[in-house]
């Protein structure tokens, strides 16, 4: 069957068997390999993408269910102007280690921040329970989401302009 999605702002179609999951369509038909196959049954969250504004497990959704909808994957987060604040903070603080869970964690966090711009640590923890990580103990991720939230609330956010705050700092002296 033909499935049409708006992926990262672009309209794309693919002809896929009906039992194809959204994850398989993204990874194998559209070559967007950012979302990962970790458990394939919705336990680990490595496949998290945003569909119509909501974080979902792409492994637990048929491509057909996403037909006509808007899908954002990790590849759609950064722009020509720079990294998303979550990406910026995560890379600077070493929030990811092996990184396999990273695309899912970042997409879940983005969906959270889109709805809750000022999350408490408890809200961040609740939002991320569906993203298992075996490396980090989640500590720097939870801190990172808070930091990114603060960055996004500040209109002067240097990360949004693609410039790193620490590199900019010496010039202010």
């Amino acid at each position, binding site marked *: 069957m033909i499935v049409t999605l708006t992926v990262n702002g672009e309209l794309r179609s693919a*002809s896929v068997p009906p039992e194809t999951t959204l994850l398989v369509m993204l990874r194998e038909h*559209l070559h967007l390999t950012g979302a990962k196959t970790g458990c394939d049954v919705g336990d680990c969250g490595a496949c998290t993408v945003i569909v119509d504004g909501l974080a979902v497990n792409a492994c637990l959704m048929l491509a057909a269910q996403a037909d006509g909808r808007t899908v954002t994957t990790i590849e759609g*987060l950064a722009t020509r102007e720079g990294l998303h604040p979550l990406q*910026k903070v995560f*890379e600077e603080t070493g929030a990811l280690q092996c990184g*396999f869970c990273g695309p899912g964690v970042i997409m879940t966090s983005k969906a959270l921040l889109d709805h809750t711009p000022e999350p408490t640590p408890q809200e961040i923890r609740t939002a991320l329970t569906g993203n298992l990580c075996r490396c980090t103990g989640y500590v720097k991720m939870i801190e990172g989401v808070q930091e990114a939230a603060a960055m996004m609330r500040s209109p002067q956010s240097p990360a949004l302009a693609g410039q790193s705050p620490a590199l900019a700092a010496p010039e202010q002296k």
Partner: protein
Amino acid sequence: MAQDLMDRELDVLDKERVAPVETLRRSDEALRLPAVAPPTALPLEPPLVPQVGEQTRAVGLRAQRPDSRNHGLGLTRYIDDIALPGMLFAKIKRAGIASARIKRIDTSRAEAMPGVCAVLVGSEIPVNSFGPSLQDQPLLAHPIVRHAGDGVAAVAAVTEQIAQAAIDAITVEYEPLPGVYDALEALKPESYKVHGGDTNVYASKVIKRGDVEAGFAQAYRIYEGRYYTPGIEHAPMEPFTSIADWDANGRLTIHASIGRITLARCDLARTLAIPISRIRVIGTVVGGNFGGKNEIRHEPVLALLAKKAGRPVKGRFNRVEEFVASTIRHAFHMDYKTGVTKDGRLIARQVRMVLDGGAYCSFSETTLGKACILSTGPYEIPNSLAEGYVVYTNKTTAGSMRGFGAPQVCFAYESQMDEIARDLGIDPVEIRLRNMFREGSMSSTGQVLHSVKVKESLENAVKKFGWEVQS
């Protein structure tokens, strides 16, 4: 099956027209567009390096990891993100029975399926055994199955779905054998011997210092306890995956999520019986290891399938295989006996441990060695005796896992230390301070220790935590 599949698909497409979905936007134009290329922000400014004035520093710097940008962008290329042109997908049939003799394997139905390109059984593997110390592990069991996760046959097909259907179509006839499923049972003379012979013990270790009996004789009190820690799964988020690719000159490239490519290459050369120089192993970024990706699992099988089919082959474990067909942390049974003086000094410690090795050796010897050496704890004990044994059982193979036996023995020696402290009425901090290694202390193996910082770590932790020592 595949034909069946295609028929059904046409049928369904037909029915689909009966039930149009109004909410969908269809765009035939979109089909003509290329597959989506990742819209990225590249090229970006190089990663941040904190600088202190003019001075360039490296060591001690909270520098950004070189891979963290790709991680955040979703651009890190893990093994499963790699697809070679013409690549096939492999699946391995798991025994599902823990102890049995394979009487017959019928692969004919699988071989006849459209889309199936190669089928492999254990008898076709040139040298069907591997392992880092003992080469006791078959790539595909033949003829004896020693644990339920043993592979018995493999298929390469054009899609993973067809490979799975082909695996389901392979029938295996087993003669069930007795088995042994408990480490302490396996020690008994009458137990079933997983690898034949007259014992299931395949590695043992003794670390002896001073005279424990003399130490116990002098002790004010003696504490005894039996501790147990279970098997643990590494559970990396990335399942074990590899690709085998031969070139026209007969040179093999293995792309694999393995942390130890040198050893993998040796194992490949040995099992495939080809010169090591004809093998290249490319270790891709490992999506979590923790000791579970230190050796080959299915790579020679993939290589042989690829050779048969004349096309590259990818094999990926699903999450269940990641549990049952990889290695796990050894379950430990530990008996601790410790003699102390009235003021809480450890003067003798005897440890006996039995490790559940599962069906094959893997890194058991290393694990046992570390566990025995470390079992006395970071303490000066003049008389110590540690004995350890690893036994075969018909369970998942135990191998290397983060800590190599140290977390198990630490649970025991530090639980017992707490018990001793409470019984003697000494603060847990104080009793440790009285016994801890210091610079120049001698370890249980008689090694003179340097850069000993255990006291500092205790003092720092106590201060940071806010623990008030009661003396």
